[in-house]
């Protein structure tokens, strides 16, 4: 699945839906809700990567492999690359990430049964650690930091009461709270 759906949250949601015996329509809706975030991510990043002669097909190809990691790298470093070379540079970044991940996923899948629980746990905890730091790095202003903190707190709180609706609700609540906070600060 790593080769086809390049988005960890979407894969986690899809697997959770499969495991809970959800219908194909319920799973579609759940993955849809978890993937809406990709639209603003793509909209925000692509103008930075586009050269004057970049084709539409190239843009669609790049968009399909944008994820938190490549998005953070793109937002951070694209500006230091000459505009003509950005599309090629970013496709190289994406190909490296996808290729390395396919190798790691296969190796971990084969080895995980034999690994001690401690090693499995340590590897699993790399994910939130890395996501938190990289999301903080990619933030452009303090309102993004506020959205991050709000989502971090609201997400598990909503999950405790409504495990099915936690992500969209937490995303909206966290995002809206941050937006209101930003507006309130601007008026002052």
């Amino acid at each position, binding site marked *: 699945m790593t080769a*086809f*759906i390049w*988005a960890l949250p*979407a894969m986690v949601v899809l697997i959770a839906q*499969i495991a809970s*015996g959800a*219908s*194909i*329509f319920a*799973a*579609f*809706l759940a*993955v*849809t809700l978890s*993937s*809406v*975030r990709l*639209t*603003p*991510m*793509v*909209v*925000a990043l692509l*103008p930075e990567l586009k050269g004057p002669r970049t084709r539409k097909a190239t*843009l669609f190809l790049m968009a*399909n492999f944008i994820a938190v990691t490549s998005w953070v790298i793109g937002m951070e470093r694209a500006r230091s690359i000459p505009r003509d070379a950005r599309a090629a540079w970013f496709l190289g970044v994406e190909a490296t990430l996808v290729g390395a991940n396919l190798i790691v996923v296969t190796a971990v899948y084969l080895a995980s049964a034999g690994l001690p629980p*401690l090693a499995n*746990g*340590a590897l699993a*905890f*790399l*994910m*939130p*650690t890395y*996501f*938190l*730091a990289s*999301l*903080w790095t990619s933030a*452009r202003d303090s*309102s*993004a930091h506020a*959205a*991050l903190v*709000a*989502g*971090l707190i*609201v*997400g*598990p709180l909503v*999950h405790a009461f409504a495990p099915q609706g*936690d992500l*969209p609700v937490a*995303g909206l609540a*966290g*995002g*809206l709270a*941050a*937006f209101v906070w*930003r507006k309130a600060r601007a008026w002052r």
Partner: protein
Amino acid sequence: MSFHAIDAWWWSWLYITVAGVIANGMWRALGVVIGDRLDEESEFMALVRAVATGLVAAVIGNLVVFPVGALAGTPLALRLGALAAGFVAYLLAGKRMIAAILVTETILVAGILAIQL
């Protein structure tokens, strides 16, 4: 219509394609189509970005508070403490990822070992 509802080789592929690839990919395509038509500095884009950030943050929070697998048996305070300490280290080190990973993982592994003793 669940994943195991139809016992045929093509059903799991169809299920993953519809509920996974299409449900995920259509938002990427939409992002390309909207592309440069939206003003990146507009208030609406700021709102959309904030919601996107809140959503990803909620994923992080759930991973820490409601872990599955090997971490499910560890104390919540240990996981929260390890993540918080790693984040502080990341800030102190000038937003260096490696600081967060080293500090978080050291505390987590040391904590699990200490409990098992």
